[in-house]
């Protein structure tokens, strides 16, 4: 009887904590590396190019490579972080409601900027890939890259792109926009949070919006609007643009 209980405990101690340990390990790594990235950014005079998201992605990817951990195992461990994206998106409603006066006042300007930005983003993505000899599939996957990922994947599936590639482009584009967007816009003499927020939401989707949102509530409100509205507009214009673009 005692030996049976001992064996059971051995089995328990051997197997049960393992997935739990793995979850805790990768959660710790992800949080630690991101926190380190944030500190590094502050140390570097809060430079936008020292983006903590890129820093964390690079180091975790290196960690997966070194430990020979498959991405699926990693994602399973840290899916609680990914899950929080949902509530965090809903949370953008609060800055949006707080700056509703500014939003209604700039509604006509926003509509214009939204249409111009969406069309530019889609057309330039397709044309640049094709001009530089990229494949048709890559060009199609590039078309909806500025939209929030679930919409981008739905669009790319519909037009014949590769969903995983579109997801990769959305993340890379967001990182690019977060790293150099603000500096470039300020060089152009654009200092208004409404323009910065809307541009980040439309051209850089989530990651660039995150960068603007944590700096200013008005920026957060316009970034939230940019993400939501650009999703709708792009879903409508991508099939239209492809209809008119030959090839």
């Amino acid at each position: 009887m005692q030996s049976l209980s001992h064996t059971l405990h051995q089995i328990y101690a051997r197997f049960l904590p393992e997935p739990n340990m793995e979850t805790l390990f990768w959660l710790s790594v992800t949080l630690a590396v991101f926190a380190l990235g944030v500190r590094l950014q502050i140390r570097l005079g809060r430079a936008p190019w020292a983006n903590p998201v890129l820093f964390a992605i690079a180091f975790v990817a290196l960690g997966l490579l070194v430990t020979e951990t498959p991405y699926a195992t990693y994602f399973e461990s840290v899916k609680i972080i990914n899950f929080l994206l949902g509530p965090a998106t809903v949370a953008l409603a609060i800055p949006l409601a707080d700056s509703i006066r500014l939003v209604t006042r700039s509604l006509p300007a926003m509509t214009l900027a939204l249409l111009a930005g969406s069309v530019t983003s889609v057309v330039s993505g397709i044309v640049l890939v094709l001009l530089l000899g990229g494949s048709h599939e890559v060009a199609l996957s590039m078309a909806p890259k500025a939209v929030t990922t679930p919409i981008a994947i739905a669009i790319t599936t519909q037009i014949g792109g590769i969903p995983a590639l579109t997801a990769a482009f959305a993340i890379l584009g967001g990182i690019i926009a977060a790293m150099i967007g603000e500096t470039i816009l300020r060089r152009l003499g654009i200092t208004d949070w409404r323009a910065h927020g809307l541009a980040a939401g439309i051209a850089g989707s989530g990651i660039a919006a995150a960068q603007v949102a944590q700096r200013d509530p008005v920026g957060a409100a316009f970034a939230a609007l940019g993400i939501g509205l650009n999703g709708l507009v792009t879903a409508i214009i991508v099939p239209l643009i492809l209809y008119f673009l030959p090839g």
Partner: protein
Amino acid sequence: MPEAFLILILFQLLGSALQMVLHLPVPGPVIGMFLLAAALLWKRSRTRTDGPKASSFDTPALSSLSRTLIACLGLLFVPAGVGLVTQMPVLLANGLPIAVALFGSTLLGLMVTAFVMHRATHDRPSPERIPDTGGQVL
């Protein structure tokens, strides 16, 4: 705080349910965001006319939870972002067109959006201006 988190989850649930039932092209959390903003505005317009009555869900806890979540929004993209490693072979095979198109298209999109927005609003009062911190953020 539990109530505040419940509000966010409930609106995400509501948004996702609407998306499923009506086959909308917009993701559930984004619909939830618009619904919650509408609910907050409706609640605020009513409390303004009815006098200062504490509203049931427009609480300081909701504001502070939202600030916390938005402050670490970047972290939440890391799990999906690491998925880039699974696409590395395809990305490297088409390296040049992908790199140029990503940079070019993202920058063009940013500049056109911000420029049109800036031009179309620029004669109106814009009280919130970015202090020129010489390229510094946060």
